[in-house]
């Protein structure tokens, strides 16, 4: 109890500060906003597929050890068949954990008055807030109404609705006050400088609803900072990568991310990113053909992760010499053809007027090409040496 008392006192102090500082952190740096509703483009199935593919699925990162009170693990004996079934389940679970937070536009607060009753003026000294706590309703359909002192009955503002929802149906991890991290400009900046992007975004998801102004401002700020610091690897294979890529594509500043992808040899993703930006800005370039070709050549991230899991089952002897060569080089023949296709597409993009950091991108591309060429030669040489027939 005494702890709570302490914290409450402190919070009361903070609240006073926070109320004063509330606006700067939220309002500052609102430079990049979604100017129209991004929802139709985001929920589009093709966009979703592109974003998921870009996010990738690294099982080590998705199922990293979490420091939560219950992080127990279970050990089981299984037959190979059961194990394979379990692998499929694991992939499903990983996909669930990578669920992207929805991107919606900011909801404006509208005052909706149900009835006015001037005869009820001054019936009490305070407002009354009524919340419908009917069992099994979703948050968005829960009704919260306010009876004001002057007798008018109206739907509650978004802020009040959220407060009441949190009060009667608490969401785990959400605070009833604005955390100081979000309220205080300097603390947020410090977190950003320490590259705690995932932590900030995770907390943001829990603390705010996707349609709130603060959500948009802070996430935009994080993405911008990330664009400058170029630590995209921190968010790769987390649920925030998709919205981040979407944000960059929307505001046409994909070049840094593209550069990072090329440097890390994620050419497939680079193509998808460019395609996404074309799609959003409706650039008349036919990207669908390249995409479909690439899709045929390369597996989706889920399939790749599944294959990775299955490969643990095989012993070394079962792997053919061909697979061993693939493992050594890290690429298959299909990958090489896919790379060629994507390189062509990326070069076309760099040549066009949409890219802004042409020199940098070209350099990276050149380096990659040389490395690729070397790898290809090595691959072919190895193949010839081992006498594997060219298929």
């Amino acid at each position, binding site marked *: 109890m005494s702890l709570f008392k302490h914290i409450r006192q402190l919070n009361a102090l903070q609240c006073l500060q926070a109320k004063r500082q509330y606006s700067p952190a939220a309002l500052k740096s609102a430079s990049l906003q979604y100017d129209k509703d991004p*929802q139709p483009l985001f929920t589009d199935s093709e966009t979703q597929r592109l974003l998921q593919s870009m996010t990738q699925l690294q099982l080590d990162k998705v199922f990293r050890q979490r420091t939560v009170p219950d992080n127990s693990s279970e050990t089981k004996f299984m037959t190979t068949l059961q194990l394979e079934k379990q692998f499929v389940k694991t992939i499903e679970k990983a996909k669930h954990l990578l669920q992207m937070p929805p991107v919606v536009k900011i909801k404006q607060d509208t005052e909706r008055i149900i009835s006015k009753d001037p005869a009820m003026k001054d019936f009490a000294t305070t407002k009354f807030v009524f919340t419908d706590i009917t069992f099994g309703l979703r948050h968005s359909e829960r009704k919260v109404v306010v009876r004001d002192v002057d007798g008018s009955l109206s739907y509650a503002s978004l802020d009040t609705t959220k407060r009441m929802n949190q009060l009667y149906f608490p969401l785990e991890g959400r605070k009833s006050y604005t955390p100081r991290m979000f309220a205080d400009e300097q603390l947020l900046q410090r977190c950003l400088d320490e590259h705690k992007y995932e932590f900030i975004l995770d907390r943001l998801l829990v603390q705010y609803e996707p349609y709130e102004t603060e959500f948009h401002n802070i996430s935009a700020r994080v993405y911008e900072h990330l664009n400058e610091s170029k630590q995209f690897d921190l968010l790769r294979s987390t649920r925030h990568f998709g919205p981040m890529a979407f944000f960059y594509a929307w505001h046409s500043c994909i070049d840094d991310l593209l550069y990072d992808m090329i440097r890390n040899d994620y050419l497939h993703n680079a193509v998808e990113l460019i395609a996404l930006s074309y799609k959003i800005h409706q650039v008349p370039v036919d990207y669908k053909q390249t995409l479909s070709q690439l899709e045929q050549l390369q597996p989706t991230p889920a399939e790749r992760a599944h294959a990775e899991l299955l490969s643990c089952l095989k012993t070394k002897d079962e792997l053919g010499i061909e697979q061993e060569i693939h493992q050594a080089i890290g690429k298959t023949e299909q990958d090489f053809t896919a790379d060629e296709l994507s390189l062509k597409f990326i070069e076309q993009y760099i040549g066009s007027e949409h890219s802004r950091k042409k020199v940098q991108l070209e350099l990276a591309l050149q380096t990659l090409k040389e490395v690729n060429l070397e790898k290809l030669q090595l691959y072919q040489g190895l193949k010839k040496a081992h006498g594997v027939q060219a298929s």
Partner: protein
Amino acid sequence: MLPIARGVFNSLTLMTRSSRGAIHTVSAHKCKAAAAESETVEEITDESVDEGKMSGSGAPDPKDRTKVIPVETSMRYLKSAAYKTTYGDSFVWTQYRRNHKGMFAPRKTRKTCIRQGKISTGNPCPICRDEYLVLDYRNTDLLQQFISPYSGQLLSYSKTGLCQKSHLRLMVAVEQARDCGLLTYDVPFREYDYSEYYGKQEKKQEQ
């Protein structure tokens, strides 16, 4: 520099007199003196001069805790060589043992180690015995030592041996640090029901 040397000497003489518990304090004292020498020369000299004025012997009372150590100093101390020599790579609390009668320790630790600005016990808890360890939400290096790497929760006082007062302060500090984002933790996963945000619009599209 002279007063410091004298302080060190005095503390060494103290060592012969006092028991096992004092050894730690003394070594810490020595190290702190050295650390302070390198970092805040003026501060320490002032202190020793004051002490010289106050008492003829000039030995600072090792049990006195009236002096307020700023958090910045504590944070620097945690990174200094003095800290390293005192604690090595282990945590602040690992070497600490509680004294108790019989086989089993009492369920709760003592209420407080410091009464009226002085250490009132022979075996003060890991935080109270070293005055340069300040519990504050900015002092994340220190707070991190008291958080379990497995569950992310605060370690119990039965493990760390903190007195109840320090433990309370620690809890408050950790909670504040988390609130400020200085300490990261695993935020619970939030599952989104897309239809809650998009449901109506999708229906419209269907129509």
